[in-house]
């Protein structure tokens, strides 16, 4: 079966000019990333901050224009889309942001925020759009009489639900959840994650779930890719990867996961960046389990 999203050799280099006479420095934020997500899958992308996971997500949506590579959505290369075609394609892929405070315009009523995608794409009449917004509000578990309020009147979890409602307004197939719950309280996190999983089943969504919380990813994602300094160093079925991490970075990352019982003997692995070859290609170490070792 053809994957819903197929990312091939995605590269994003940020060039920083340092004055007239010095050579510009190049930050390789995303350095040849490839992965594929099947329809209906919840694919985790993990790594420490600065590893390029968010940049990858934004490059897929062309919120940041990638330097090179291919992003195939249902077989078509998104990066070659013309402006009107891209506009149309945006209806199929949406993003939920990390920060529920800055992701909603503080000067707009939340009803207008959720309605905006419908207005942009000229869908339905005013009354139809209003009905759809109310429906979306119910879908994400918010009350319809909150529509006329401003974002600051909501809690972080509620705001994140509003952000999800906005992302769902256009009936997308793919949702890129960019650290969508990491700014929330743990108890709220669980609620929002449960909502996202529920929505996935009800609306046949596919997720690219970008996170640094490994235990969360372990619980909800079917497959996962680990990013380190702009490269995917290991990818595979979540269970296999967590049980038998092959790459030193994955091992170090997993050893850093907090454990609830303070008496459990723990061994925190330090990562020695020189101990492995950062340019090593991914190779299949078990069925469906690839690592750059």
């Amino acid at each position: 079966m053809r994957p819903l999203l197929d990312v091939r050799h995605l590269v994003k280099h940020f060039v920083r000019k340092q004055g007239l006479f010095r050579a510009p420095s190049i930050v390789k934020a995303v350095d040849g990333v490839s992965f594929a997500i099947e329809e209906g899958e919840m694919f985790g992308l993990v790594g420490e901050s600065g590893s390029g996971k968010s940049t990858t997500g934004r490059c897929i949506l062309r919120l940041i224009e990638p330097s090179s590579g291919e992003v195939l959505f249902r077989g078509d290369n998104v990066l070659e889309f013309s402006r009107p075609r891209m506009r149309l394609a945006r209806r199929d892929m949406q993003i939920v942001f990390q920060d529920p405070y800055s992701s909603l315009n503080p000067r707009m009523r939340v009803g207008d925020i959720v309605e905006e995608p419908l207005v942009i794409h000229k869908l339905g009449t005013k009354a139809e759009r209003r009905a759809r917004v109310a429906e979306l509000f119910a879908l994400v578990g918010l009350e319809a009489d909150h529509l006329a309020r401003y974002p600051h009147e909501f809690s972080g979890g509620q705001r994140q639900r509003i952000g999800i409602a906005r992302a769902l307004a256009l009936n997308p197939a793919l949702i890129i959840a960019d650290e969508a719950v990491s700014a929330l309280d743990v108890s709220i996190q669980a609620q929002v994650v449960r909502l996202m999983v529920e929505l996935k089943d009800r609306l046949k969504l596919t997720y690219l779930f970008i996170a640094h919380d490994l235990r969360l990813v372990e619980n909800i994602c079917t497959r996962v890719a680990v990013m380190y300094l702009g490269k995917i160093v290991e990818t595979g079925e979540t269970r296999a990867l967590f049980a038998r991490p092959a790459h030193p970075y994955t091992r170090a990352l997993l050893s850093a996961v907090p454990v609830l019982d303070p008496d459990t003997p723990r061994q925190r692995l330090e990562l020695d960046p020189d101990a492995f070859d950062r340019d090593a290609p991914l190779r299949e170490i078990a069925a469906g389990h690839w690592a750059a070792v």
Partner: protein
Amino acid sequence: MRAAGQILIVLVVLAAVGAPWLAPNPPERSFPDALYAPPTRVRLLDQGLHAPFIYRQRLVSRLERRFEEDRSRPVPLRWFTGGRLATVDEAQGGPLLVLGADAFGRDILSRLLYGTRASLALALVATLGALLLGALVGGIAGYTGGLADEALSRLSDFILVLPAIYVALALRAVMPLVLPARTVFLLLTAIFVLLGWPIVARGVRAIVASERQRDYAVAGQALGAGPVRLLARHLLPAASSYLAVQATLLLPAFILAEATLSYVGLGFPSAVPTWGTMLQDAANVSLVSEAPWMLAPAAAIFVLVLAVNLTVQGTGRAPVQLLERSNRW
């Protein structure tokens, strides 16, 4: 303090709007026997309390500009006649000159009221124009970034370093000296807008550039919103309180600029009453002591500038703090 400022502004605007009704005389009408006539005193007491009345002012010596009040006969004010608030029967009481008359015997109060219209309209239109142009240029520069941003920012920097009043003088000076009032209005508006927009653009650019990085702007982009929609719906509204502060800074500046230009004879033709042209008439040191009522427009300028400043400062925040507030939410 803020309320006081707002009340003063409302009064000034009402004076401008109601000028034809409030003015006792037509502004261009000259009374040949009232050159430099002192203010007519409106009285209530004449061996007992009366309805407001005046004594007729009689010219005693044209050379010495001496006037005397004819105390024999009080002339009552007429209310709401001929479409004006208060007048007197000219056959009995002569002209009603509450703020005196100028060198041509024209009523200063009436000219001041009509002048408020011209000065305020010019300042308002110019302020609006500068805000619009500044928001547009700043919005484009902040949104696009890169080369366009560089070019627009350097252009506004260039205009900012020019000494504004000299540029205004120079620009006005290259145009024909005598122009119809309407042309002067447009010309001055254009000059003021040209000199005023860079200040606005610089601030708007900074606000738009920083707001653009925020997730809600990125979200708009992800939803397929084009640059026009992003700017109009999301980014420029973020600059709205900054624009409000700029308006309160530009308006008094433009009032003063009009006065300055008209004062040096490069503004409106002197027949048109504005605060500036009226001050030009008072530009004679010996006159100021003999006919101090000629300085009435200076008082008007003072009151309006004070009112605007009170309105801004009365919030307990200096403009700079208002600016900071506009960046938060």
